[in-house]
C-alpha cells in the first residue's frame, strides 16, 4: 500500500496537459471561427460556461460524499486546473483583461476576486498545514475555545495556589496587569498570519521580566505558567491559521455563487437578445 504524500506528479501533469490542451483547442477554434467571420464568443463562451459549472459542481460534490463521483482529491485537482483554465478562457472570451459593459465589468470584478481568492486559498492550503504541523500541537478548531478556557482556568488556579502558598502576590499582580488579557482569548492574530516570532518573544519576555522578583518557589509556578502560556500561544497560532483556512472560503464561495448567478443571467440575455 502506498501512502500519497501529495498528488501524484503524473496526475498533475496529465490534468495540466489536458487543461492546456482544452485551452489550445478552444483558442484555435476561436481563431478558426473568427477567420470565417463567425461569432467565436459563443464557442468559447459555452466552453467557459461548462468549466464554470464544473467548478461550482465541486461544492455539490462535497455535499454528495456517498455517491461514487470520483474522489474529492481528483475533484480538487481538477478544480484547481480548471480554475486557472477558466481564467484563461475568460480572457479569451472577453478578448482582453477588462470588459466594457457595466454588466460585464461587474462579472469581471467578481470573477477576478473569486479567482484571486481561489489562488490565495490554494496558496495557504499548501503552506499553512506544514506550519500547523510544526507548531507541535494539534487541535480541532471547534475545541479551541474550550482549550483556551481550560488553560486559563489552570493558570488562574496555579496563580491562586501560588499566592496562597507563598504569600506573595507578585505573580498574581503581574497576571492581573498583563497576562490576564493574553489568556482571555486568542491573541496575536495578525502576527500569526505572517508567522511572526513576536508572540513567542512576548510570552518569554513577560515571564522573564518577572523572574528577578520571584523566589525559588514562585519561580516553579512561573515555569508552569510559562509552559501554559506557550501552549496557548501554539493554540493561538492554530486559531489564526485555521481561521484563515476556513474563512477564505467565505469570500470564494459566495462570490462564486454571485458569478454563477450573473453568468446564467448573461446567458439568458444573450439567448433572448442576441441569438
Amino acid at each position, binding site marked *: 500500500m502506498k501512502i500519497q504524500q501529495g498528488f501524484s506528479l503524473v496526475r498533475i501533469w496529465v490534468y495540466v496537459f489536458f487543461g492546456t490542451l482544452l485551452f489550445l483547442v478552444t483558442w484555435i477554434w476561436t*481563431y478558426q471561427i*473568427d*477567420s*470565417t*467571420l*463567425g*461569432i467565436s464568443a459563443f464557442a468559447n463562451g459555452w466552453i467557459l460556461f461548462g468549466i464554470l459549472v464544473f467548478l461550482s459542481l465541486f461544492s455539490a460534490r462535497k455535499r454528495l460524499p456517498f455517491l461514487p463521483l470520483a474522489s474529492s482529491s481528483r475533484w480538487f485537482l481538477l478544480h484547481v486546473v480548471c480554475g486557472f483554465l477558466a481564467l484563461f478562457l475568460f480572457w479569451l472570451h472577453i478578448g482582453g483583461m477588462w*470588459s*466594457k*459593459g*457595466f*454588466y*460585464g465589468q*461587474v462579472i469581471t470584478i467578481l470573477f477576478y476576486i473569486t479567482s484571486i481568492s481561489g489562488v490565495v486559498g490554494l496558496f495557504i492550503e499548501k503552506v499553512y498545514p506544514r506550519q500547523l504541523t510544526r507548531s507541535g*500541537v*494539534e*487541535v*480541532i478548531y*471547534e*475545541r479551541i*475555545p*474550550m*482549550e*483556551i*478556557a*481550560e488553560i486559563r*482556568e489552570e493558570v488562574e488556579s496555579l496563580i491562586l495556589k501560588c499566592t496562597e502558598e507563598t504569600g506573595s502576590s507578585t505573580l498574581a499582580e503581574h497576571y492581573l496587569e498583563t497576562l490576564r488579557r493574553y489568556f*482571555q*482569548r*486568542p491573541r496575536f492574530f495578525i502576527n500569526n498570519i505572517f508567522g511572526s516570532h513576536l508572540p513567542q518573544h512576548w510570552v518569554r519576555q513577560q515571564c522573564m521580566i518577572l523572574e528577578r522578583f520571584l523566589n525559588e518557589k514562585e519561580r516553579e509556578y512561573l515555569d508552569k505558567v510559562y509552559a501554559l502560556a506557550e*501552549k496557548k500561544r501554539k493554540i493561538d497560532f492554530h486559531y489564526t491559521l485555521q481561521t484563515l483556512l*476556513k*474563512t477564505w*472560503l*467565505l469570500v470564494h*464561495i*459566495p*462570490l462564486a*455563487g*454571485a458569478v*454563477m*448567478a*450573473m453568468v446564467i*443571467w448573461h446567458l*439568458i*440575455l444573450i*439567448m*433572448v*437578445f*442576441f*441569438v
Partner: protein
Amino acid sequence: MEDNKFGHDQSNYERPNLPYRCGRASLWQTPCNHGPEVDGTCGGTQECTPFLKNDRWECRREKRFGGPCEDGPGSGGECSIQRPPCAPRSTLRIIRGRLVLLAVSIVLALIGTSLVLDPKVGGMVSISDAGPLSKSHAKFTEKEGCATCHIAYGQGPVEWIKAVFSNSDLSSRCVNCHSFGGPSFKAHNANMSPDRKVGDTQCVMCHREHNGPGMSVRALFSDQCNSCHKNKFTSLEHGHPEFSKKYPYFNRNSIKFDHGSHLKKHFENPKVSDKAPGSCIGCHMITLEDREVRPSSYEIVCAACHDSQIKKKELILLRLPELVQNRIDRDSLVQACNFPEGNVKEEEEFLSVSTEQPALVSAFLLNIPEDDPEIYDQPIQDLVLAMAEESSVPFAELIDSQTETPMSENLLMGLNPEVLKRAACSWGLNREYESPAEVRFGGWYTDMLEIRYKPSGHADPVVKSWLEFALAVSLNQKEEDKAARAIAMRDQILSAKDGVGGCIKCHAVSEVKNSKVGSHLAVAWKYESKSDSPYVLYKHENHIEILGTKGACSNCHILNKEVDYMASFKEYDPVNWVSNFEFISKKTCMQCHSESQIDLECQKCHLYHFKPSFKKDMLVVKAESVSTTP
C-alpha cells in the same frame, strides 16, 4: 496535549455538521458539555436531568462528562449546576451558506430591479446594461431605446422564452437605417456567383455594439478574406495576384491629352514654355480626391495655349454654290425682299456669282450632291427664295425634319433672321452679300456667299449642338446617298483640324454600345470618372504627403515614350487603347509595401461594403426629431 482528552469516555464526537456552536465558547468561556440544540437554543442550562429513585434524586450526568457531580441534585430534583442560557452562534459553515444565499440574492435583486425599473426612471445603474453604445448609435436609438435593435426588449416573459428559441436576427434591424448598393446580407453587398457556397452574411459578424463610444468593427485580416476567396494569400507581397493588365488605365481618357508630346515637345517650346505647368500638380488636383486624381478645369489647364484656336474654326451652314441658271421667280423674290421696283432688273445672261460647291451641311440637309449643279440648282434656289421669304424658318424646318426631337433651336441659336433674309435676297439676285459688320466675339454671320458660325470660345453651346446633330444624323440613314452625305458632314464637323471649334482635337469620341438603340457615337464633353472598382481603396494624398510633391507622381506614373497615344483616338473604340503611362504593376507598390516594410493587409486597400449609405427616411426622421427639439 494529552491524548486521553479524546478517550471514548472523555469526549464526544465533534460534530461540525451541526448548525450552532456554543455561545459561551464564542466568548472564549468553557463551553457546556451538551452544546446547543439543533434549533439554536442553549442546551446547557443544566448538566443533567436528575432522576427520582426511591425518594432520592440521583445525578444523571454522563460518565464522559465527569459522572455524577459532587453536590448532587437539589432537594427539588433540580440539577445543582445551573447556568444562564447562552446565545448559540452559527457555525462558519452556516454563515458561509448564508453568504452564498446573500450574494446570489443581491445579484437576483439587482437583475429584478433592472427588469422592473427603467434605468433612467429608477435613477440607478441597470445591472443588465450590456455596455454603452457607440456615439452615433446612441443618438439614433435615443427615442426607441433598446427595442431599436432588440425585438424582445420590453416584452413579457413569454416573448422572452420565444426569443430564446428563435433567431433574434439583429442584422435585420440594422438595415432599417443602413442601406447598400447591393443586397445587404450578401458578401460584399453583391450578387456574385461564388465558386463555393457562401452563406448570407450578417452585420453582427463584424460589427459589435455595447463597446463604448468608439465604433467596434472587427478588423478583417487575410484569414477572414481567405475563408471565402478562392485565391488565398496573406499580404500584397505574398500571393496577391498581379494587377490586371492595364491597371489603372482601363478606360480611354475622355480628353485626349498626350502627356508625351506636351511634356517632351510643347512644354519645352520656348514660345509657350512660360505657360507650361511646373509639375503634375500644376494640372492635377491631388488634394481633392482619394483614388482618382482629376485634372483641373479647361480654363486653368488648356486655355492659356488653346483658347485662341477654337474661334478660328468656323461652321459653314450654307454656301451659295455655282448655279446653272436662275430659277427664282423674280416677282416672288421682289415681293419677299420688298425690293424697290426697277431696282431689280433681269439679266440677259445668267452668270453665277459663285463658283464654289455647296456647303456639306446644306448638301446634307437638302440631300443634294455637292458636285452636280444640274441637280442642286433647283433646291438651292428654292431654299434661297424660301430664306428670302421666311428667313431661317426653312432651315429650321429642314433641320427638325432630320431628327425625332427638333434640334433647330439650339443649332440656329443666335442666327439673326434679318441678316439672313437680306443675304438671301442678295443671293436671289445672284449677288454677293456684303456683311455690315465683322463678328468679333463669335456667333452667326453671313459673309459674301456663306452663312457661317464663329465659335465664341470653349464650350460653345451651338457648336456642341452641331456636333451632337452631326453624330445623331449620321446614324440610321436609310437612303444610301443621304447616309454618305451625313457621314461626310459628320466627318467635317468632327474633324479635329477643320471641324467647328476643333472640339474633337481634345474631346474623345467613342462608340457607345447600346443594345436597345444600337451603337452610336458620343463625344466626351466632360472629364469622365471611370472608377468602377468599388472595393478598392487608394489615397493619393497620403502617398504624396510622404513622398513629397516633386517626385511623387513619377514614382508610380512613368511616361511611356514609345506609345502613340493619339493613334487610338482616331477610332471610336474606347477599349482598344493604350495610355501615355506605363501600367502600374505590383512591383510598383512593393517598392514600399513589402512585408518587411509597410505591410499591407487586405483591408488597407480593399473595402468590404458596396456603396454603404443611410436610408433616406431614417435621415428625415432624424432631421424631424432634431428640428422638434428646441
